[in-house]
Every structure is written in structure tokens, then in C-alpha cells.
């Protein structure tokens, strides 16, 4: 059977009785539906099962690893917002000109170039050659304080931010361009509001809900991007845990991590909905 955790754990040449004993011990001899039901029952008690390779409860393993990943995700999101929204707005201001095409390039590059490659190159350049950032590693928030933690996360956060700023920039551009055609901007112009204010204030507030949705989405996918980045920067986060568990076929941990990511995804979705309703009262009105 491919991907058997027992074989992975004990090695190919383990004696058959040892394999059988371990399989029974882990409850893997039961039929799949039984295994699944038992797992579901435990889930209700926040019990994701026990890690096969580390012997610790999967839930606490995951909890330990959440901090760097969440911080990295938040930092990356902030950076991608700071880079992405101005990028989108600028290309709206310069629509139809050469500048619009030029401004599309950074977004395109950020989406297309593999982050693992740029990460390695940037470590070499900014950490190894000029010692601006640490090469790798992570100091936990609780023990070492915010400054030290942020110092570790700046370069990985920057790479994540660059990786996702293209999406946010594009959404900002597309949704604001859509808004630029609306009648109420004509009303604002006719009232003498300057074009700058029309775009930055009157149009942007209307396109903000779509941008917020993309930001929420990219925060969730940054947890995925973190898998790669954590591996390169040797950060003991959730992504790192997922890769290790996959290589060890540690199913309880994999399942637990996926459930955790799903929960994050749902929470983020809820938050974006609330935020959108706050920004645009019409959405709130439609929900009610």
C-alpha cells in the first residue's frame, strides 16, 4: 500500500508482526468508516488524534506552530496591501496611457516569478552578502519580544507581500475602473471635486469591498505561500509542519492542519463580510 505510515515509520524491512502490532495499536486495522467516525468523535473534543511520528497530540503540535505562520501571514498581507493598492490606483489614474501598461508589469511579475527562487536569491543578496536580515530561523514572540520576532519575519514577509501584491493591485485596478464609469462620480465632478479626490476617496470607497475580499482571500492563500517560505527560512511554522507530516505520512497532523486552515479560511471570510458591510452600507442593507 503506497503511503502507509507504519511502513514509513518502521522502514521497508520491518518484520511483519511488528508492522501488524503497530497497525493495531494505531487503530489502522479497523475499517475506514469506523476509523473516520472515531476521528470525527474525537474532533468534537478538540482531539485531532496523536501524531504518528512524534507521538504528541496533533492539536498541541499544530497550536505550537501557529504563531509564526499567522504573524507571517499578517505581515505579508500588510505589505501586499501597502504595495498593491497604490499600484492599482496609480494605473487607474494613468489609464489609457503607456504608464498603465508599465504599471501592469510589477503585478504580472509578482504573480509569475516563483517565490522560492526569489527568496533564495534575496537571502543571498540581503542576508548573506550585506547582513541586512537574518539568513533563517525564528525567535518566538513570547520569549524574545516583538522586535526580534519581526526582524526574523521581515524578509520572508516582504517576499510573501511581493508575491501577493499583484493580485491585490489587479483587483484594485479592475474594480475601481468599473466604478469610474458610475454616474455618481460625475455628480462629484460636477460639484467641483478634484479628480484626485474623486479617485482616491469617492471611487475607492466604492471599490473597497471587492478589494477587501481579495485581501481576505490572499491572506488565506498566504498560509499556503508560507509553506514554501517557511521551508526556505527554516521557520518552525504550520507550513513546515505540513511538509514534515506529509513526508512522514503523519495523517492525524495533516488532517488537523487542513482543518485548522479551513477554520482560518472561514473566519477570514466572515471578517471580510463584516468589513464589507461596514464599508458599504448598501451591502448591509441587502444582507438584512
Amino acid at each position: 500500500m503506497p503511503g502507509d505510515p507504519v511502513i514509513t515509520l518502521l522502514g521497508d524491512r520491518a518484520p511483519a508482526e511488528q508492522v501488524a502490532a503497530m497497525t493495531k495499536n494505531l487503530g489502522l486495522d479497523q475499517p475506514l468508516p469506523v476509523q473516520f467516525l472515531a476521528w470525527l468523535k474525537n474532533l468534537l473534543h478538540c482531539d485531532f488524534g496523536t501524531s504518528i511520528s512524534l507521538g504528541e497530540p496533533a492539536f498541541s503540535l499544530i497550536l505550537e506552530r501557529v504563531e509564526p505562520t499567522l504573524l507571517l501571514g499578517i505581515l505579508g498581507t500588510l505589505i501586499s496591501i501597502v504595495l498593491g493598492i497604490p499600484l492599482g490606483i496609480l494605473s487607474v489614474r494613468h489609464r489609457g496611457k503607456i504608464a498603465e501598461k508599465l504599471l501592469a508589469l510589477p503585478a504580472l511579475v509578482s504573480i509569475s516569478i516563483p517565490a522560492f527562487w526569489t527568496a533564495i536569491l534575496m537571502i543571498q543578496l540581503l542576508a548573506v552578502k550585506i547582513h541586512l536580515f537574518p539568513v533563517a530561523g525564528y525567535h518566538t514572540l513570547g520569549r524574545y519580544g516583538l522586535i526580534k520576532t519581526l526582524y526574523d519575519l521581515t524578509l520572508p514577509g516582504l517576499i510573501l507581500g511581493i508575491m501577493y501584491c499583484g493580485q491585490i493591485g489587479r483587483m484594485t485596478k479592475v474594480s475601481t475602473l468599473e466604478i469610474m464609469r458610475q454616474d455618481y462620480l460625475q455628480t462629484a465632478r460636477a460639484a467641483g471635486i478634484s479628480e484626485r479626490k474623486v479617485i482616491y476617496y469617492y471611487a475607492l470607497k466604492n471599490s473597497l469591498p471587492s478589494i477587501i475580499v481579495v485581501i481576505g482571500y490572499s491572506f488565506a492563500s498566504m498560509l499556503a505561500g508560507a509553506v514554501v517560505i517557511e521551508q526556505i527560512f527554516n521557520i518552525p511554522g504550520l507550513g513546515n509542519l505540513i511538509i514534515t507530516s506529509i513526508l512522514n505520512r503523519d495523517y492525524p497532523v495533516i488532517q488537523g492542519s487542513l482543518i485548522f486552515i479551513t477554520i482560518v479560511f472561514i473566519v477570514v471570510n466572515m471578517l471580510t463580510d463584516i468589513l464589507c458591510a461596514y464599508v458599504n452600507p448598501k451591502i448591509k442593507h441587502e444582507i438584512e
Partner: protein
Amino acid sequence: MYNTIFKIRKKTNVYILTGLSLITIVFIFSIFGSLISEFDPLRTAPAMRLTAPGSIHWMGTDDVGRDIFTRVIYGIKISMVIGFVVTLISGIVGTIAGISAAYYPVTSKVIMRIVDSIMAFPTIILAIVLAGILGAGMRNIIIALAISYFPMIARVVRNATAEILATEYIESVVVLGKSNTYIIFRYILPNIASPLIVQLTYTFAMAILNESILSFLGVGIQIPTPSLGAMVSDGRNYINTAPWIITFPGLVISWIVLSLDLMGDGLRELLDPKRRHSKLRFKKMAILQSAYKATETDMQDLLKIENLTVVAADKHDTHEIVRDVSFAIRNGETMGIIGESGCGKSITAMSILKLTEPNIHIAKGYIYWGDICLSELPESRLRTICGKEIGTIFQEPMTSLNPVFTIEQQLSAPIRLHLGLKKADIHQRCIRLLQDVGIKHPEKTLKSYPHELSGGMCQRVVIAMAISCDPRLLIADEPTTALDVTIQAQILGILKELIRTNHMALLIISHDMGVIASLSENITVMYGGEIVEQDTRDSIIERAAHPYTEKLINAAEELYDGADELTIVRGSVPRPGEHIIGCKFAPRCTFSTRRCHTERPPLIRKKYGKGTVRCWKYI
């Protein structure tokens, strides 16, 4: 609509061309490379390890002496094959799932539930987990990536299909009893082709990018098979001594993905009409001055338009939509412009403050505001006159107000900007303005958002905004067209009262002679972008000279009298760009003679009074 795919050939697009040429270079590179290369991508040569790029090893060798160039060539092939197969499989599965979800409501729920739950996971994680569980190797990566991508395609296809199924055209085909297979192949597939092609191009790019990520993480293509991602991973430890190991594979991945994304962007721009936005054309056309010489501006004139010609430009050519229009409005005077939709009356009014669509601009003529030439003024200076000296009311009250700001925020903006009042004063002024336009609970209304108000209320707010800084001229572009008849009467009453008490001049645009006659002392009748008659209201109503004016008056009278049969003005206004040699109204005119069809009539002074008319009858 049905042959969007073929339009690719007709138009050129910078993104597509660049992307296509970049990807062609990769293809040529990999084909010629594999022909030229003398090395085996797998054979190690410890003696040659970590050789720098040179004449023998063009891209150097790696830590076990394998030729990087040859490995990159193989890596490209593997990436391309994976990208292609993943796109093909997820494309087919996604299309089938998407169409059946749109077609059969029962399957729809099941399919979309599956699609949604797969999409709840970030694609990379899903692919990593699937590839990890299935085990490494090319086949499993393809399966993992295809599972990760088909939901996105299914969703695009479902939405596009649902949109097409909802059209009346397809509904009628269904009624005709055509089989589902026929409908799918004849109507659905050709129409979802555009969004599908765009999505597939992106899928191709993402598949290649994510394959490299999987291989980099060690859950993808297994060593020693050359894969671009795995090569980067291998080269990490030697980045100081042999940077070429990681540089070249990384460059090639970026190159491939970038060119595919470029193509995707180009295709999207080309195929998706929603995302296509009109190009700004501020380029001033060479001003071809007519024989007309600018007369000394009559100081009494508040607004004076001289020989205004407005053109609309699209990609191919420009055509005149307003031609040689002149009129003047004095202080406190009221002028109405009447004509059917498409006669250029709104364009004329919107040109005054340069509020036309970006592709429409003034080609000839001048617009004077007192002694300021508005048509020559830069936009930023123009905005200081907008709202302060000239107020504007638009046609659609419901869309004229910004949905995300309260009425107070919107109403106070021009007051704060132009009058610089204190906060409390601004609030007081807002309340007074709302009272002036007949709103009973101004405090409550100020706190509301536009969606909480009715159309009539919104239009009152828009009027309040337009008069908030006591402008000297009010431009009202079809201010009552979108409203019910009873509300129309109220709004007209308010406008009438306002211009009387505030001594404002008014420029009102309408297709309704009743509206125009009740508000304006002078009337300009426009047809096909030209003025056909201009006179005082009384002369127009009593002695309409132009046949078109006469028809408009008859239509209005019959409408208001509730006649059983309406005298319909047959035909329709000429389209912009439609070439008519003679009088533009001739095709619809009951009096037209041969001359009307061959020669354009000039605007001449009427025999009696001050009015002008453009008709051969009077020459």
C-alpha cells in the same frame, strides 16, 4: 458574439504578441537545445562537478557534474507536458462539471458543493497534500494539480453557461425543442469559449509554477529526473560557489510563467468586453477653424457656445456627434434644448463642464463663461467653476448619488470646498437646502444613505447639491425623465420656484416638449447633432417653423390631451457617423423634396422675429 475566438486574428494585442513570442522562444530553445546537446541529463561526471558556465557546459554543471543546460531543456519539457496535461484534464472535467451544474439543478448543488469545498483550501496546500498522499511522480502530480484546478474552471464555466441560458434567445431555442446536446455544442460551447480560454491559459501558467513548487519541496518530480523546481532546490547549498545551478532553472520558470500570464492578460483584455475600457483620448484634434470669426463676447451673456462641434473617437475613426451648435444664455435666462434621444443635446450640455465620456471631446468651437473660455481651460481650473458657479442635475437620481456616503457627507462636500464655511454653518445650510427642495425631515434625510431614499427624494437631494453654492447657472439634463409623472410635476415645480427665487439661469435638456415649455423662455431644437430651430418659447409653440419641431409639439399635445391615436414621428434619428448628404431629417419628413435629400440646408434667420431655422422650406 458567436465567433469571438476568431476575432483574435483580426485584432492585435501587445500582451498576447509579447507572451506568444516569449513562449515561442522557449519552444525553439528547448527543441534546438535537445538537438544540439551532447550530454545525458542523468549521467553524473564527478570530475566535472561545479564547473562554471563555459564553452562546453553552457550553463555550467551541478554538484555531481551533470550538464545544467541539458537538464534545463529536459526540465522545460517536463514542465510543459505537466502544464499541458493538467490544463487538458482540468479543462475537460471542469467544463463538463460546469455545464452540467448550470444545466441540471439537481447535479448543480452536488457539483458546486464539491467545487466549493475544494476551493476552500488554498491550491498550493491542496496540491501539496494530494501529491504527498498519492506519492511523488509525474502521474500523481498531474492528478493532484488537476484536482486542484478543475473547480476554478468549473465555476467559470458554470457562471458563463448560466448567463447564456438566461438569455431570451436560448429560451426560445429551448422552446423550439432542440436537444440539449445540440444546444450545448451549437450555442453554449462557442459562447463560453472566451472565458474558458482565458482561464485555461492561467491554469497552464499556474500548473507549471506549482509543479516547480511541489518539486522544490520534494513532493513533486523525484530526483534524479530533471525538474526545474527540484534543480533550484538542489542548487541551494551551492549558491555561494556555483550560483549558476539555481539561476538558470529559476530564470526559465519565471520566463515560461510570465509569458503565459502575459498571454492570459492579453486574451482577457481582448475577449472579455466587461474588462475592456474605453481608451482615453485627450489628444486634441487639430482645430479646424471654420470661417466663423469669434465675435466680441456680449458682456451680458453668462454662457455662450460658439460653433461647438463634438466628436466621438473609437479605435478606428472619429465621427461628429454635435455639429456647429451655437447659443447663448444671459443672466437669469432659461434655455431648453429639445430633441429625441441621440440628438446630441446631452452631449452639448455635458461638454460645457467636460463631463462627457473620455472618448468624446470638443473638436471645434468655443464655450465661454463670461469672458473665461471654458473649452480651453485645464480640467483642474474647470473644477473650481463646477459646483460653485454652475450646478448640474443628472438624469438618473438613483445612480447620481454615491452609495457609500450619507446624504450629509455628499451635500456638504461642495459647500465645504467652495464656500469654506464652518462645520455648524455647513450643517445649517444643508438643512435649509433640503427644505428648499421640499424635503420634510431634513435632519433624518441627512443621516440616510441613498438606498434608503426614493427616486424622487434622491433627485431632490441632487438638486439641493446642484444649488448648494448658489450657482448662477443650473444645467438640468433630463431631470425628470426617470421619475413617475406625479413626482415629475413636483420636481418641475421645485425647479421653477428655485430659479425664480435664486435668480439662476437654467439650461434644461429634455425630450418632452411639456417639460421644456413649462420651464424655458427660449428653446433650441436639435436633430442629428444639429440645431434645426431656435426661438422664444411662444414663437416655437405658436408658429413652429421646422417640420421636426411641429412633430414634437403635436406628439406632446396628444400625449397630454390623452388622444386615442398618437401621431408617431416615423423612423428614428440617424446614428452617429451615419452619412447623410442632405437635411438629416429629410428621410422622416413629410415635406421633403429632392433638394432636401441632396443638399444640407443652412441655419437661416426667420422672416419674423429673432429665431433661426434650418429648412429648405424657408429659403
